[in-house]
């Protein structure tokens, strides 16, 4: 018997399109793919998530959000609620090869759009 596991994938350019978002760093990596989404303003919680191909949706626009993503191997971070990244955040993000995008959507709307698009929750 053969078991086939279908893993949903979404290209980052689709994420940008769904969230009407602006790419801040990693614009050359929009063909990269994510399968799961995790949304939180609490970086403590983000650090406990152990998942590959994860997209982080957060309203916590500070340097630690970038550090947290980098340490947790999260390759793309969406800043929602129209939060703007600082130049220091963008510098650290591009240094570490992270894709970062800004969306004016509320967190609820951003999550709804991504979920409707097929992105899966971690749990």
């Amino acid at each position: 018997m053969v078991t086939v596991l279908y893993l949903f994938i979404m290209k980052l350019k689709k994420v940008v399109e769904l969230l009407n978002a602006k790419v801040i760093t990693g614009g050359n990596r929009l063909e990269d793919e994510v399968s799961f989404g995790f949304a939180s303003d609490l970086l403590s919680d983000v650090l406990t998530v152990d998942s590959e191909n994860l997209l982080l949706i957060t309203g916590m626009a500070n340097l630690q959000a970038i550090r947290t993503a980098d340490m947790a191997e999260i390759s793309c971070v969406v800043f929602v609620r129209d939060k703007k990244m600082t130049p220091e955040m963008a510098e650290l993000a591009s240094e570490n090869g992270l894709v970062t995008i800004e969306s004016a959507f509320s967190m609820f709307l951003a999550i709804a759009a991504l979920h409707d698009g097929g992105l899966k929750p971690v749990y």
Partner: protein
Amino acid sequence: MLFKYEVEGGNFSKAGFASGEIKKILKQINIDAKIIRRVVVALYEGEVNVVAHAVRGTVVADIDDKQIYIRIEDEGPGIKDIALAMKEGYSTASEKVREMGFGAGMGLANIKKNADWLNLSSKVGEGTVLEMKTFF
């Protein structure tokens, strides 16, 4: 190989510097990505704890072909009840720390989850020493 970094209490903009450097080093010596993730998440939690709860500290990492040993030592208030501090959800973090996105009381439990070996010792009014090992 021995590496040493200073950690400044209260300075969130520098929290994670040591973790970032250790991540680069482990990548260079071709350690498995999943192991690197576990090491640096635990180290980062430890670094953030010094920034959030202590006055100053140092991170020492000793890397050989079999393991990484990390020692995070700080001068600070120390921890009165270590068993309680290890519990998920227990936190004495200040409002300022919470505004930065931390202070859920998840860090020490997460370090325990990610490290292969952990030792936490503390003297109230003096400081805290967190040691951990991860085997390659």
